[in-house]
């Protein structure tokens, strides 16, 4: 029971991070029907941006308030990552819009290779550790010496995720931008004819996705305390799995899928074997796609002639 609760907490934390990344995949897929392969690496870039920002604030400016550091880092990482993603969309994907389907995908794979190697070249291939930031824990259960703990940083991660999702939900449902986005998702040509600036909407979709990935990146950095240039690929694929599991194109689905993947991964590691946890995640992806291609909350794909 204690192990179960502990793993539940860990899984939800991990799942929050996956869910935040998954939203970027699902939004981009919804609006232009493309699997944005470089999104995982954008996440990694954001973690590095967060690392630089934290170092800047602590070692150079000598700031000590954890709360301020986190808020500033989040904002800085969101802005810069959004900028990077905007540039990527502009340079690598927009010229290929309207081309055949594989073209943007190959371009995205190239971009993914470029980004991870760019970080390797500029920041070096080693793991980059930061000093632990939030170390306090609550003990919520204790029996026979086994403590179930809830770390402050886990609380922060879940709270920030939940808050952001609310903001994001409001953005998509209530604002003109969200309306434009949903319109483009349904029919880009019609939206353009009705005066929606399609290019700008798509760019903003990429920026929003990247900003959420940036939050995930900073959270990842804070949670594990270390980041590496190769850290983009596996979380990227898992977040994509989450997006597919929840039903690609569906925003609540992405979050739900993220949480499920996080839970499955932690429970698998705890009860079966830690070596095969990635195999478990990938197998779920395969099984879901084969038996339930529309995902948990997605709309079934209608085949049009």
């Amino acid at each position, binding site marked *: 029971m204690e192990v179960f609760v502990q793993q539940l907490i860990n899984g939800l934390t991990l799942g929050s991070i996956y869910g935040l990344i998954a939203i970027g995949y699902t939004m981009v897929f919804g609006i232009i029907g493309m699997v944005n392969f470089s999104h995982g690496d954008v996440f990694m870039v954001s973690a590095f941006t967060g690392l630089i920002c934290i170092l800047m604030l602590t070692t*150079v400016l000598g700031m000590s308030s954890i709360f301020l550091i986190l808020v500033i880092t989040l904002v800085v990482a969101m802005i810069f990552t959004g900028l990077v993603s905007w540039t990527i969309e502009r340079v690598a994907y927009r010229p290929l819009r309207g081309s*055949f389907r594989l073209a943007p995908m190959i371009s995205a794979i*190239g971009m993914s*290779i470029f980004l991870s190697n760019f970080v390797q070249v500029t*920041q070096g291939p080693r793991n980059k550790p930061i000093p632990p930031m939030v170390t306090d824990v609550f003990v919520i259960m204790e029996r026979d010496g086994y403590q179930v703990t809830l770390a402050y940083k886990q609380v922060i991660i879940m709270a920030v995720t939940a808050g952001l999702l609310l903001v994001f939900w409001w953005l998509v449902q209530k604002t003109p931008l969200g309306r434009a986005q949903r319109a483009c998702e349904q029919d880009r*040509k019609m939206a353009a004819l009705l005066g929606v600036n399609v290019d700008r909407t798509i760019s903003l979709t990429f920026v929003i996705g990247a900003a959420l990935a940036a939050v995930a990146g900073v959270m990842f950095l804070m949670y594990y305390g270390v980041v590496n240039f190769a850290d983009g690929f596996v979380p990227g694929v898992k977040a994509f799995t989450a997006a597919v599991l929840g039903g690609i194109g569906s925003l609540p689905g992405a979050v739900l899928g993220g949480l499920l993947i996080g839970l499955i991964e932690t429970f698998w590691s705890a009860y079966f074997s830690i070596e095969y946890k990635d195999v478990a995640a990938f*197998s779920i992806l395969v099984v879901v*796609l084969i038996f339930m291609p529309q995902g948990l909350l997605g709309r079934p794909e209608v085949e049009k002639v």
Partner: protein
Amino acid sequence: MASADPVDATNPDAVKRTDLAQVPPARRPARREKSVVERAVSEALASGLLTFFVLLPLVGFHATESGTGSLVLDYRFGLVAVFALMVTAGRLVLNLTVWRGDGPRRSAARVPPKSVAEAEAVASPWPRLGAVASALVKPVFFGLAIAYPLIAVTLVGGLGPSRYWIDIGIYILTYVMLGWGLNIVVGLAGLLDLGYVAFYAVGAYTFALLSTSVPINDFLAGHLGEGFWTAWSFWVCLPVSGILAAFWGVILGFPVLRLRGDYLAIVTLAFGEIIRLVLINWVSLTNGGAGIASIPAISFFGIPFSSGEGGFAHMFGLPFDSMHRMIFLYFVILGLAALTALVTVRLRKMPVGRAWEALREDEIACRSLGINTTLTKLTAFAIGAMFGGFAGAFFAVRIRFVSPESFTFMESAVILAIVVLGGMGSQMGVAAAAILLIGGMEMLRNLSFLKNEWLFGPNFDPTLYRMLIFGFAMVAVMVWRPRGLVANRMPTIFLKQRKSVSGSLVKEGHG
């Protein structure tokens, strides 16, 4: 999606352009020339500024380990400024020359040609010359490939020094073969496979495990003589590797056949990763991440390339040279690649090949015409996988060591990039792309002149930039030629008149 109607609303620029074209030239604003310059300057400044901010966090700051192990920051703002200035200048020059009065967006959002005839006119301005050239390309290419070791040895002077060049030749040909194998799946059948490296791994591990297996060796030593298995293992295992890989192709292909396009891509990617992770973790069989070493070397159909009595050199009365083995390896991979090409060309003319191409163009039409799509897809998967398996066995016998490190997603991405950059379905295009990408990547290893202190200084390591440039080149080629290097193709079957079809009229990759 790229419809040919005049008001292509997905490209607002296209609308703008048609409007502009209707304005008579005299009525355009007189100060147009100046505004072009103004726009060029402002756009260049904007790009420069953007570059500065994009590069600021990761290039401007560098987190380095201090003596105590914690990270400290270095600053490289000068570098960021240099890059920003370079981008500004480059954009300015481009805006004033190539993109003059016609932004990059507009030139990219080209409306596709309306008809096949028009496409043909666009595609080949000199049809005669094109036909002659395309008829010559294949024999010339093949002749060059056969003569390559001779050319390399003659030019470099001697067997020994040519080792590097032969090695590159083998390396490139391996990728040509892999590209041709994947081309069957992606280019012909239109099934996007991102896990092709799994079959490469199956082939390599099949050969590695069988050839180093002690029971098989003992059993055959008892029946066919000592050393039989060492000498013949490659030739026995090559078909076994291909068959096993094809078998895996069917196993993996079967459940995913209902999926389309991107979903198929992701599932194949997942399969590729699963196989790699199993190879890492199933230590008792595969020796895990440490890999399998001491795989027997290739033999000249049973005659080992050894220096002593009974070796290749001795049998043929040649002075012993370790390069004989390399050159033989070169011809083996050339033969395997040629086999792949030949089989593909022949299959395209058979019902199954035609079914593949029909499937690629329109799955629903295919099904309505009574083609068994399941069987068609499975054959494509299996045959593509079989060639991947052959290439894998060859890889294992060349390196004589296999480990999961060699079968990462990156390999799949590189092979897929070769197929797509080459122009899907085009054999020569795939070969050209393999030479360009793999050869180019190898050439990037030898940029030691950049270490000159006038350029980047001795601390500069050009190999670090290899994959960086590779990724960049992938994006650049895609943006420049989304249809690949060879974008036109001859239909294999036609009514009355053979026409070259522009790539932009074909919608493949629809899985």
